[in-house]
């Protein structure tokens, strides 16, 4: 990494008084093409098998979408079969919202989660959740901002439904016992997301996701929903009529497989950060390995925008063991500037995330970043500047940032933090309709695993909105299906077709999917999940 050495850059930061934004001469499109990781040469390949054959897809994701299954028929001999109405896969915000609504509608619900209930990206979300509630703001403006920030690639129908539902989502969350930051009159406080036209993000400090997950987890725990933890799904099952009709669970506690037969299945498995696309660090949870995409694709579900990922502009760049940790956009929303190694601003900090990230990568690539060592560079996030303008704001509104500072040995009120883009979100995903149903009947996909809402770039606060809005809707619809007759001949028969196609296309059969756990954990099928036995 080239750039300005840390101590020199720090001196520049301290001496630099001017904080004016220089005129930019580069258009967003041009900037993205030159510096955004999505456009990196060699990172995309065409898919060779499956419903999206011929579509461009990120190389590492493609290898998993076209991987062999982890199991075959023989593994399931003698496996226990359990029956339910609705199977929810994933224990984050989307899964909880779906499960709660399905249960409320009278369905028997099993929630299978790879780790524990609530272990998800939801719990780590910081910035907030979008809902047009302020005077002068409208759902229409929310829709326009969402589509524009997504480079007009989002699905208008889905976004319309979501923005109209947003205020009711906030009401529902309050009824689950979630708190929000309120002003002295008890009104919801709002902040502005980058690339939007109104203050529309409601929040709880920079712990919005934690507060949401605490409330939802407690709601689920106090319901009749049957939660199976440490139970990753390794394969979906379908009926003779082609409906998704259940899943194969790998029970980590006793290394056995269990078949759950369900009238309908809701996939809420989240994103892909732990695939570390393009070698980037990630802000994501340990479990964010894109399992849902692989499971749905194999069963024949159409996916979309597999070449578009979000790199959040402000991941912590240093120290090493915390690299990639998210610093909320709320910090920039509160007025924090980004400064290069010369102590100068170089981008409008409240542009969309793709634009700001590309601008940071440009500064670093062109030698104006702050260089720490061979592998580490970044730019300053001027948190002291925010504190100066608004004394006390860091402690009061951004406590998680202050905590993070402590871990780095830095007081963000006095010292800027070094940041670098971090792999944050999968913009695309499984194609869904307004009920969250995929192109496979009976298979609902909600939250980050689904695609179409964010186009090619997501704005702050729309992810937390999406998971609850579509989670609730899918939960209701999935429960309706439980009144019908059960499915017949529920099998993993789709795997023989998959294997045939893989063989014809000459794909390597040594890659197995879904990934389940990040490489760093060195997990394998026969490994003890408590990790007491060392891998040979």
């Amino acid at each position: 990494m080239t750039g300005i050495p840390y101590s020199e850059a720090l001196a520049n930061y301290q001496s630099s008084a001017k904080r004016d934004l220089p005129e930019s001469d580069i258009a967003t499109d041009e900037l993205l093409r030159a510096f955004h990781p999505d456009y990196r040469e060699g990172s995309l390949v065409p898919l060779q098998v499956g419903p999206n054959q011929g579509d461009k897809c990120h190389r590492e994701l493609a290898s998993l979408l076209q991987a062999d299954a982890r199991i075959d028929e023989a593994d399931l001999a003698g496996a226990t079969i359990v029956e339910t109405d609705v199977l929810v896969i994933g224990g984050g915000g989307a899964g909880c919202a779906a499960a709660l609504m399905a249960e409320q509608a009278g369905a028997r619900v099993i929630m299978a989660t790879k780790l524990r209930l609530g272990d998800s990206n939801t719990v780590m979300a910081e910035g907030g959740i979008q809902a047009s509630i302020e005077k002068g703001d409208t759902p229409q403006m929310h829709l326009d901002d969402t589509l524009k920030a997504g480079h007009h690639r989002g699905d208008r129908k889905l976004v319309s439904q979501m923005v109209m539902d947003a205020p009711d989502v906030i009401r529902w969350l309050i009824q689950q016992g979630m708190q929000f930051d309120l002003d002295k009159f008890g009104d919801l406080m709002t902040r502005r997301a980058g690339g939007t036209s109104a203050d529309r993000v409601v929040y709880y400090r920079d712990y919005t996701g934690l507060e949401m997950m605490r409330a939802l987890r407690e709601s689920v725990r106090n319901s009749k929903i049957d939660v199976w933890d440490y139970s990753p799904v390794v394969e979906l099952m379908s009926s003779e009529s082609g409906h998704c009709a259940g899943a194969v669970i790998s029970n980590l506690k006793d290394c056995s497989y269990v078949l759950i037969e369900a009238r309908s299945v809701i996939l809420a498995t989240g994103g892909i950060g732990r695939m570390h696309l393009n070698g980037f660090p990630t802000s994501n949870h340990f479990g964010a390995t894109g399992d849902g995409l692989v499971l749905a694709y194999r069963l024949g579900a159409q996916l979309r925008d597999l070449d578009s990922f979000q790199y959040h502009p402000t991941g912590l760049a240093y120290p090493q063991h915390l690299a990639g940790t998210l610093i909320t956009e709320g910090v920039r929303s509160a007025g924090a500037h980004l400064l290069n190694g010369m102590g100068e601003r170089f981008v409008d900090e409240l542009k969309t995330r793709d634009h700001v990230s590309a601008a940071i990568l440009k500064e670093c690539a062109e030698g104006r970043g702050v260089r720490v060592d061979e592998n580490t560079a970044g730019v300053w996030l001027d948190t002291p500047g925010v504190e100066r303008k608004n004394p006390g704001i860091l402690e009061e509104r951004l406590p998680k940032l202050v905590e993070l500072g402590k871990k780095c040995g830095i007081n963000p009120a006095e010292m800027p933090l070094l940041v670098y883009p971090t792999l944050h979100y999968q913009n695309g995903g499984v194609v869904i309709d307004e009920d969250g149903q995929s192109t496979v009947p009976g298979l609902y996909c909600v939250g980050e695993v689904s695609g179409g809402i964010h186009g090619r770039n997501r704005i702050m606060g729309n992810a937390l909105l999406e998971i609850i809005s579509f989670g609730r809707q899918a939960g209701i619809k999935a429960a309706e299906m439980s009144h019908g007759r059960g499915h017949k001949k529920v099998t993993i028969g789709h795997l023989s077709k998959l294997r045939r196609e893989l063989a014809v296309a000459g794909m390597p059969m040594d890659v197995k999917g879904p990934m389940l756990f990040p490489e760093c954990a060195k997990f394998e099928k026969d490994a003890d999940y408590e990790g007491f036995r060392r891998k040979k």
Partner: protein
Amino acid sequence: MTDKHDMSEVDEKLVNVTIDGKAITAPGSLSAIQALWHAGYPRIKSVGCLEGVCGSCRVLVRREGNSEVKTQLGCQTLIEEGMQVMFLVFPRPTHHTYKLENINSSWEVQTKFHKIFPEASHCRECGGCNASCPKGIDVMRGVALADKGRFREAGELFVECVMCDLCLTACPELIAPNHVGLFSRRVTAYFHTRPSNLIRRLEGLQRGKFQIAEE
């Protein structure tokens, strides 16, 4: 500050620790979980956000030359020479159950609270909850405030709570203090969060005041 950042070489110094009885040598810049992986142990259980907010990775920690055992989060615990780390199993879920919908009005909250959490009044102020909390929350005071019906104030103390259940494990009276804290927060929202800007917008939506233009 600058010095701190020029310490990358020092960070790479190897340290010897014992994790779950396994002797491990790993760079001092790693957390207890990372050190376990570094040494080739494929641990999945009790691993979560790796950022200190999910509460999964509960560990007991003893530092060299100190007999005191502390409870911490494994992802937030950087290994040190001579450190001993032991992962804790998750306790059985608390026996306290309730539904917010079953509390008919805010006048009833205190009575319901004492029915749902009868043990909260038995707090013997042993301080075990406070000592066990990896977030430094004054848990014991929170329980006392909730017991007096001061739910808003009690809930405020639990802002940083990650529901790791360490206080639940520590409490000899089975109070489940973190759930008391969460109950306090939830009833405050459920009964008292009534933002006029949100309610006005919901009313407008209901009256059909806001429509999305056809493309």
